[in-house]
């Protein structure tokens, strides 16, 4: 207990005690007895005041439009045209169309590859960077950390343009690899686009995992040192399990952000060549705003929300099973 308090009192920016040590009312006490606890918090009305601004804003400006947009997926609304002003509910008609739309299934497949690739790239590289940053000399740490974070903060439009310029003919990649006329982007579009996404998301993971690393109690690591464990063993058997909650959360957040990543890919390829980078957010936009099928685009958007829900459930399960 005292060491926890000490670590909190120390340069407050070092971050508080990690959750692995246990959050909730009383870490270290025996499990709660069944039945209503008398010393548990009861619902306070002041909680409502705290929640009210967020709930109000979310309900009116987000939840209701989302429900409306969800409903739109089952209508025949168009952006322009006869069905732009007078439109109606069409039941499962759009669903039937979705079920037999090869471009949709292609888009689904591409999206999953994109997300999985992004997760693997971001977590592995983010973790590697976080570990390396811990033992780096100060100037290098500031420089490399800064570069990675700038990549994260760059607006998607700029990031897209720089990656387009770098991976097409006479770009940075080609020139450095001695193949200045190679068009990497259009030969391996999904790969390059995934790399671009990893590049722009890794900064976030690096920050998060870095803080989690820093909060692993020193004693635990030193105990492993005493057992004369190799660095790799120590990492695999001690550090990784302690980082697990953070990694799982990062995976979920990267999934959500990548799934919504429209601007980056739109600037780079507009979903092409052909449909090879037409992931769900782009396909939804294409249907709604380029093909005029607002309702069908909304349905594809609904699928995106469904995927988020599935990932969310997986995440909740994963974070319940804990050592």
């Amino acid at each position: 207990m005292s060491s926890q308090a000490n670590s909190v009192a120390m340069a407050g920016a070092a971050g508080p005690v990690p959750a692995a040590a246990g959050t909730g009312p009383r870490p270290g006490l025996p499990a709660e007895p069944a039945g209503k606890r008398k010393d548990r918090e009861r619902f306070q009305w002041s909680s409502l005041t705290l929640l009210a601004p967020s709930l109000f804003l979310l309900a009116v400006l987000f939840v209701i439009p989302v429900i409306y947009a969800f409903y739109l997926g089952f209508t025949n609304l168009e952006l322009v045209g006869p069905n732009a002003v007078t439109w109606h509910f069409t039941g499962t008609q759009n669903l039937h169309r979705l079920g037999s739309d090869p471009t949709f299934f292609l888009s689904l497949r591409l999206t999953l590859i994109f997300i999985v690739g992004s997760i693997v790239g971001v977590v592995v590289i983010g973790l590697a960077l976080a570990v390396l940053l811990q033992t780096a000399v100060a100037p290098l740490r500031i420089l490399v950390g800064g570069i990675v974070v700038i990549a994260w903060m760059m607006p998607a439009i700029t990031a897209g343009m720089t990656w387009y310029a770098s991976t097409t003919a006479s770009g940075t990649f080609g020139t450095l690899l001695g193949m200045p006329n190679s068009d990497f982007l259009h030969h391996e579009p999904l790969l390059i686009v995934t790399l671009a996404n990893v590049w722009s998301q890794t900064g976030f993971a690096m920050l998060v995992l870095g803080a989690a690393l820093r909060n692993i109690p020193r004693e635990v690591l030193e105990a492993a040192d005493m057992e004369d464990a190799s660095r790799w063993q120590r990492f695999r058997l001690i550090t990784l399990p302690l980082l697990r909650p953070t990694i799982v959360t990062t995976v979920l957040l990267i999934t959500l952000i990548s799934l919504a990543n429209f601007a980056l890919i739109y600037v780079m390829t507009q979903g092409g060549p052909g449909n090879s980078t037409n992931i769900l957010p782009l396909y939804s936009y294409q249907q709604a705003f380029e093909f005029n099928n607002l309702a069908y685009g909304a349905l594809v958007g609904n699928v995106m929300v469904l995927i988020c829900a599935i990932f969310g459930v997986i995440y909740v399960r994963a974070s319940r099973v804990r050592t």
Partner: protein
Amino acid sequence: MAMRRFAAPRLTAVAAVLAAGAIAAACSGSGTTPAASTKEPTGPYTIKIAYGSDYVFDTTGFTTKWWDQVAAEFKKSHPNATVQFIPIPGSYNDIVNKLSLLYRNASTAPDVAEIPTGQIGLWAQADYLLPLNSYLKSSSWWPQFPSVIQSEGRFSGNVYAVNQGENDSALLYNEQMFRKAGIPVPWNPKSWSDIIAAAAKIKAKVPGVTPIWLNAGTGSGANGLLQGINNFIVGTSTPTIYDAKNNKFVVDSPGIRQALSFYQQAYAKGLGADTSALFSPNAVTTPLTEFQSGKLAIAVGSNYYGGNWTKTISAPYWAQAPSTMGEAVIPTYSGTGTASTLGGWDFAVAAHSKVAKAAFDFINIAENEQNSIDAANWAGWVPPDKAYWTAPLYTSFAPPYNAFFADITPSSTLTPSSASYSVWVQGMGEATGAIAQNPNTTVSQAVSILKNYVTSQLGSSQVETVP
């Protein structure tokens, strides 16, 4: 404590009211629909004018200059009016999307809007636009529009939009490179194989330049087709892309095959540009700079090229353009005529505009000789009124291009204005993109890419094959 008890219900009530209002407004569309006016309002009024601020004219600066110029002239004869501009930034899609949103509500719909030719039919069908027939009866410029330009705004017998400026296409080539390759100048290809032959000679005799620029891929959208393969399709014996009578899109026809075959030969011989340039977001305008830096020999180009090489528009500009660049019409497949697409921007008035008469007066002023030719010069258009084509203000602006492209206009062909045209655009973009990326693609493979994609999106009842 008591206050907090009430807070929750009150919040949800407000939210429900707001939400209900939003949904009701969305469902019912535009609420009350006042009749269009035929007279200018007596008191002070506001007239809303929407236009693309970055994408339509050659530069943002000229956009503001032209619209301010017309507004100033309008205010002289309409002192009660306040002109409220709604400039729309971004590119083609952004303009169309923003306008679509603005039109959904009568209170936000712009009284005068600058809309692309290809969208007129859609918006007329949605009842967004006011028929202008009665106003046009008394206009002096309308009868001077060639019939093909008049027809672009005509749907179900009504005219919903009048043209502001047109783009058409021709072959632009570098005369010096042609001389070096031993091709006689001025160049007058009589068939598509003539074009291929010339490009092949360039490749052999003039190393280090791209022989011919042919727009391909999905990145450039409808514009890429307008300044690309569509020019060839409309020059065949089966130029139809959209069969309006049966509401079907043509996905296979001799004309489409001939055009794709032309592309296939060009790319198979290595005469086209590489994919990095072709698939870039701004591919359609790349030939402009490629010509200037001497890296391109031939392009299927558009009439705005010439203006962009002049000092007025660009800095740095290309003074040697008129003496370096030659122009030739695209021959039809049979070699007997001129092939070109036609498309541009038009003026339209909102269907329920409260100041419709004033709106049309604004358009009237915009179409007078000075303003129309200024627009043409600063946006790279052919003015719709054919009487202006011989005006010195126009012909001396970017000689000889302006006059040359004006002459092509009457024989050019409009592109479809149907909702699903963008699906066909995507399909054809994929087909040409496949050819450009992999020159071993056969014509049949390219056609099946087009056919499969359009059929999967629109259903087989909306596509047809012309034998």
